[in-house]
């Protein structure tokens, strides 16, 4: 007779947006550091996207507290083995990185750009953290299914990467920043992330076995299989592979990936709390 | 209760026939202690309850068949020679010979000798002892004489075989035999057992006989007056024992003395003559009675005016004023006004619909209570248009126990004091204050009256202590205890009691007006300390310990702080304990006697229930049952329904009586009430096929006022419900939680069905009989936020029928129908 924390939509959004923020920043930092000058657009889009997202994350996190004004109490304690504790710290720290990187993304000074790249390399670690710690957080609870899933953090990370990249690519499409090779590289990286995510998901389900029932069968099964696996991963991949020459399909694929990423958090959180 | 709850831990076997764990949970700790020490615990109840959960054996019994059960045990003990012969021969009337005319119900097809069908009552001429030349009962110590009580009893219960118990009670033979063996073999010198009872035995049209049957079994097994034995009567309200001792009853005056009858007791002399027995401790009744009159009327009571005897209200009839009589009379218009002080008859009484209709016909109704009860809002009852109710209702807020000083007497005769913790708010008053104020105001109104009948009332003092408004409760206790009305001197002229000094013992009461005492059995509860101040022993707080396991330093148990009654029976004829293990009091021949020249005294772990200097070999020194005229325990004990308990079916029953032709108790009281207000279901009625019993839940209190109105308690049960077996639920296609309608010829209620394994159908004479259970705590008032705190009134189902001795209702066994849904 266990008790669910009753984390609902706000937390689903938090998990989702945190994943994108982390994924986007990491994409930006990689592009910044390892891409060419022409990939600058990718870097700027990623940095600039992650900043407001982390901000929203922070707000969601605070808003969801029973006593929001006591958010600071989280910062009064630091428990390095406690995902919730470090998570709260990291949102703040990562927020700083996104802020600095965003500001620096407008610089024309090469010195500053170099600094930005270095900052990006450190910040991407925090981005990764934000994308994955939420998974580790729930997998280290007493709840069945969550606590059985050793790959929850890994899965959230893969999903954070794929949605972050999808978001960057979508934003680039919308803002018309698709010129240059950056956009293509993002999509390529995203393709890789999605394939990896599918693999992790398969391993995740395999390792869970019957413990995965809350999402693989019953009420949430259609959403999981249809919404996440088919619509959120397989179809975008197919669209991407088969139709990557048709420009208009790319944003559709990106949107589907994003929806899939949301669905992943939604089914995982809600299936045992509903 | 003859014993003390603490002493339960010394029992070798305990048989609860009441639902003790649920209704007396605090006392139940001693059952758990006994179990920890290895005692066996049996629970007899139609339902499997929280008491059964703690039991080694649960014995399901069809409601209303208790005499068949106890009769079966008596028969078993006799047949298997398991009774305690020495005890039975010497300490009971088993050896006494009865008038040869007398025949038991075995020979009278369910009736004892002397039944007068026209009167619906017994002529008891043959129900008496054979006397010898000196007027003493004849005895046969071999117990062989066919007219001996023992042989009559044996013959009477010879029909109560294992098979018969199974057919009547529905207890499988093997289970009954297991219980019989277990219970009856735990007696004799080394072992004792006790039986608890409460309403499970009383609320029947043979309620008093049920209890007699239990007592007979205990006598037979030699269990009374001994440690770990006794009759564990578990009483109701926190102070119901006190209310009984002080006689808030229609037929008795404080201290168990009859309320005078108009015709039989025209004057004090006639009363004393008729009411004072020739033997036993009651020969002192005149002292207690005159002291009582002195307590009532003070200086106005003198020898010349029979101590005010004529001012006492007299009963016109022996039986006209019980709770049930009152509501029938009220309905019929004979009663116009009603004071309900701490009572909720709109919910709590039997046939509550009748009670509500009756109260709606009153001119005025005063309710003094700590909550706005259903009775206080009788004009708002569901289905009633308030405009049509002419009753003028006055509600007087009352202070509960925590807001006043006073004493409570609990189930083990223990008087305990409580102190006011907080002052009552606003215009809330204590009951004592209300009563005294009311009395004084009435006295003022009658002040000029010259009528003789008003003199006593005008003379009575309602002043306790210095503040006329607020009675000082210790003063009330002192008046109950008794005090000297003038200086009392001994034969040498030395003052033994100064005027006003509390009496140390009822042995000091006199019948010459020199002592006053409100309830003789309580004497000793207040005494004068060495410093001249009043010592309130009800407030004594020294807990029990190894040296004083009965806790004599805690509170004060009447009489004389004695914890186990009839404790002379704990020793053998010679005054030695029956066994080392079961010692309680014994004769110490070497102890200093009451005079310097004499030696010998009863000593031990309790206050002897006996003249402590009466040697075992002195006259009557071997007779423990001092309250009885014949000084021995009575197997043969005439009540209105016979000298031996006989099984009859409840007034409403699913089956014919298998033990005799006599279906119901021939002398039971069945009220005729106009307007179909008291219809009864015929035996075996197809319209009302299920047995129903009503009962309590730990979480709720009585009519529910003190629990349904309190969120923390009210929330413990979802809502009103009925407990139904899976078998019956299947027959009715019910699921756990479905709403059902429970109906009887008197009314119907809508409740939720709790389908459970804890009830099982009975097999009665080869036929399946279903029984359901319905708690009765719900009513139409409650907490707004908790819809389940309100519910239909269970007592709308019950009938106005009663036991012929005390007129208690039959709410433990009657018949009903159950239908799915709200119909």
């Amino acid at each position, binding site marked *: 007779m266990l008790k669910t924390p009753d*984390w609902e939509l706000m937390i689903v959004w938090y998990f989702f947006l945190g994943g994108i923020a982390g994924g986007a920043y990491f994409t930006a930092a990689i592009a910044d550091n390892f891409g060419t000058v022409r990939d600058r657009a990718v870097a700027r889009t990623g940095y600039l996207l992650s900043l407001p997202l982390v901000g929203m994350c922070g707000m969601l996190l605070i808003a969801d507290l029973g006593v929001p004004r006591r958010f600071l109490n*989280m910062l009064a304690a630091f428990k390095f083995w406690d995902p919730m504790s470090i998570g709260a710290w990291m949102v703040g720290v990562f927020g700083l990185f996104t802020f600095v990187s965003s500001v620096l993304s407008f610089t024309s000074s090469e010195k500053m750009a170099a600094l930005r790249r270095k900052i990006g390399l450190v910040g991407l670690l925090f981005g990764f953290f934000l994308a*994955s710690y939420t998974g580790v957080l729930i997998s280290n609870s007493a709840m069945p299914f969550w606590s059985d899933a050793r790959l929850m953090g890994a899965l959230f990370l893969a999903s954070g990467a794929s949605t972050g990249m999808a978001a960057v690519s979508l934003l680039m499409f919308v803002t018309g920043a698709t010129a240059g090779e950056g956009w293509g590289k993002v999509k390529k990286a995203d393709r890789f992330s999605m394939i990896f995510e599918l693999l992790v998901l398969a391993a995740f389900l395999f390792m869970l076995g019957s413990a995965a029932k809350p999402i693989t069968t019953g009420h949430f099964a259609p959403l999981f299989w249809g919404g996440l696996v088919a619509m959120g991963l397989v179809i975008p991949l197919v669209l991407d592979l088969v139709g990557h020459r048709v420009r208009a399909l790319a944003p559709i694929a990106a949107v589907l990936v994003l929806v899939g990423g949301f669905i992943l958090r939604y089914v995982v959180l809600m299936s045992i709390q509903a | 209760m003859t014993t003390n709850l603490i002493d339960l831990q010394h029992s070798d076997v305990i048989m609860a026939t009441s639902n003790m764990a649920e209704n007396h949970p605090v006392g139940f700790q001693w059952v758990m202690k006994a179990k920890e020490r290895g005692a066996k615990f049996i629970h007899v109840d139609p339902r499997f309850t929280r008491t059964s959960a703690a039991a080694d054996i649960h014995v399901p019994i069809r409601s209303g068949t208790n005499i068949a059960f106890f009769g079966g045990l008596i028969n078993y003990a006799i047949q298997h020679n398991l009774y305690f012969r020495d005890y039975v021969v010497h300490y009971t009337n088993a050896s006494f010979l009865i008038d040869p005319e007398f025949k038991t119900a075995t020979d009278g097809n369910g009736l004892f000798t002397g039944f007068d069908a026209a009167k619906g009552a017994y002529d008891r001429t043959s129900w008496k002892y054979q006397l010898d030349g000196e007027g003493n009962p004849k005895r046969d110590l071999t117990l062989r004489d066919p007219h001996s009580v023992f042989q009559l009893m044996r013959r009477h219960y010879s029909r109560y075989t294992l098979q018969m118990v199974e057919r009547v009670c529905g207890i499988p033979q093997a289970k009954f035999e297991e219980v019989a063996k277990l219970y009856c073999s735990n007696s004799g010198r080394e072992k004792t057992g006790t039986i608890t009872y409460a309403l499970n035995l009383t609320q029947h049209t043979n309620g008093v006989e049920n209890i007699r049957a239990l007592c007979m079994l205990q006598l037979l097994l030699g269990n009374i007056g001994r440690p770990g034995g006794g009759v564990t009567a578990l009483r109701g309200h926190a102070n119901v024992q006190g209310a009984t001792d002080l006689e808030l009853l229609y037929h008795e005056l404080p201290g168990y003395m009859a309320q005078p009858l108009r015709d039989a007791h025209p004057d004090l002399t006639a009363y004393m003559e008729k009411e004072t027995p020739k033997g036993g401790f009651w020969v002192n009744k005149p002292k207690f009675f005159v002291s009582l009159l002195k307590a009532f009327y003070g200086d106005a009571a003198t020898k010349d005016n029979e101590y005010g005897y004529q001012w006492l209200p007299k009963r016109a009839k022996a039986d006209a004023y019980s709770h049930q009589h009152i509501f029938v009379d009220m309905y019929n218009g004979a009663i116009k006004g009603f004071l309900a002080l701490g009572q909720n008859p709109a919910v709590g009484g039997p046939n509550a619909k009748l009670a509500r209709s009756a109260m709606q016909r009153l001119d005025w109704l005063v309710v003094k209570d700590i909550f706005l009860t259903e009775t206080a809002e009788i004009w708002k009852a569901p289905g009633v248009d308030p405009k049509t109710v002419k009753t003028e209702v006055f509600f007087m807020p009352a202070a509960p126990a925590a807001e006043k000083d006073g004493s409570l007497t609990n189930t083990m005769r223990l008087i305990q004091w409580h102190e006011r913790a907080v002052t009552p708010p606003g215009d809330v008053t204590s009951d004592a204050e209300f009563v005294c104020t009311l009395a004084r105001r009435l006295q003022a109104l009658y002040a000029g009256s010259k009528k003789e009948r008003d003199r006593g009332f005008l003379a009575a003092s309602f002043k306790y202590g210095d503040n006329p408004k607020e009675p000082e409760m210790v003063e009330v206790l002192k008046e109950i205890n008794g005090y000297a009305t003038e200086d009392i001197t001994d034969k040498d002229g030395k003052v033994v009691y100064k005027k006003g000094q509390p009496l140390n013992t009822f042995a000091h009461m006199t019948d010459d007006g020199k002592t006053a005492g409100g309830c003789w059995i309580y004497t000793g509860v207040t005494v004068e300390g060495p410093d001249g101040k009043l010592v309130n022993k009800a407030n004594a707080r020294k807990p029990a310990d190894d040296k004083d396991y009965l806790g004599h330093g805690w509170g004060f148990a009447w009489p004389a702080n004695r914890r186990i009654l009839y404790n002379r029976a704990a020793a053998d004829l010679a005054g030695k304990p029956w066994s080392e293990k079961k010692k309680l009091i014994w004769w110490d021949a070497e102890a200093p006697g009451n005079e310097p020249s004499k030696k010998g005294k009863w000593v031990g772990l309790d206050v002897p229930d006996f003249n402590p200097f009466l040697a075992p070999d002195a006259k009557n020194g071997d007779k423990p049952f001092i309250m009885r005229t014949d000084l021995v325990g009575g197997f043969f004990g005439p009540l209105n329904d016979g000298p031996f308990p006989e099984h009859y079916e409840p007034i409403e029953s699913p089956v014919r009586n298998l033990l005799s032709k006599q279906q119901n108790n021939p002398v039971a009281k069945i009220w005729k009430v106009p307007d179909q207000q008291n219809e009864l279901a015929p035996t075996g009625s197809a319209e009302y096929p299920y047995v129903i019993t009503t009962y309590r839940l730990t979480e709720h209190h009585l009519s529910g006022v003190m629990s349904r109105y309190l*969120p*923390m308690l009210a929330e413990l049960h979802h809502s009103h419900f009925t407990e139904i077996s899976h078998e019956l639920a299947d027959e009715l296609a019910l699921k756990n939680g479905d709403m059902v309608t429970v109906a009887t010829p008197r009314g119907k209620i809508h409740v939720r069905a709790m389908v459970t394994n804890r009830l099982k159908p009975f097999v009665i004479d080869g036929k399946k009989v279903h029984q359901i259970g319905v708690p009765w705590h719900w009513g139409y008032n409650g907490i707004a936020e908790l819809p389940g705190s309100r519910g239909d009134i269970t007592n709308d189902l019950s009938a106005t029928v009663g036991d012929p001795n005390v007129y208690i209702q039959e709410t433990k066994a009657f018949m009903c129908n159950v239908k799915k849904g709200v119909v």
Partner: protein
Amino acid sequence: MARTLAMFTDTSLCIGCRACQVACKQWNELGLEVPDWTGTYQNHTHFTDKTFRLVRFIEEPKPTGDLAWLLMSDVCKHCAEAGCLDACPTGAIYRTEYGTVNINQDVCNGCRYCVSSCPFGVVSFNETTGTAKKCTFCNDRIHNGLGPACAKACPTDSIQFGFRDDLVTKAQKRVETLKAMGFKDAQLYGADSKGFLGGLNAFFLLLSKPSTYSLPEQPKLPQRNVVVDSLLSVGSAIVIGLGALLAFRDREQGDGNA
């Protein structure tokens, strides 16, 4: 640290009177709750923010055909290794000098991580205060020389309060007695400080297997997988990172430039 205090709930002595449940509510001033229809006497179904002691009523037919009605007063276990405490990011949940686990209401911010981290479903969220609630082991009482309200109210000593080591010894004897009396499934739950969760400071004597009472047979500390799960995440991060790295290292034109 003071000697560890404990509560020992001996279900073999419980009569299901719920005095403990009510005493707890009263002492801690926990408010009214609308009950559930549970189909039995039990209410409420679970621990709540207003029910810290919960008496469970379990009807269990025995193999003999007789019925057992198992009555058990359940409570926060005050685990020696407490999931709730480890989970709490604010430090609101702390261990007292007596070894009990308590929530500081002034520090708790209502994140509810503790709720999902209790292996026994004990901690509950209170919407009004916005904080997490559970049995306090009557912190105010034990610091003033009184035993817990629930233990005090229990008429049968089914709930006993004292030093943990004393109680464990007593409990072990009681199990032996019960076994000798024929209760062959009598067992202690959480008494062993070498057993699960380092032992429970509110431990139990059960008459049947733990699952009968809705207790996990082998409760585990939720935080036990933080390292593994984190390493797996790191692994996954490395793979993704490498993938992205390769994508951006690619000096050739990307394929999206059509």
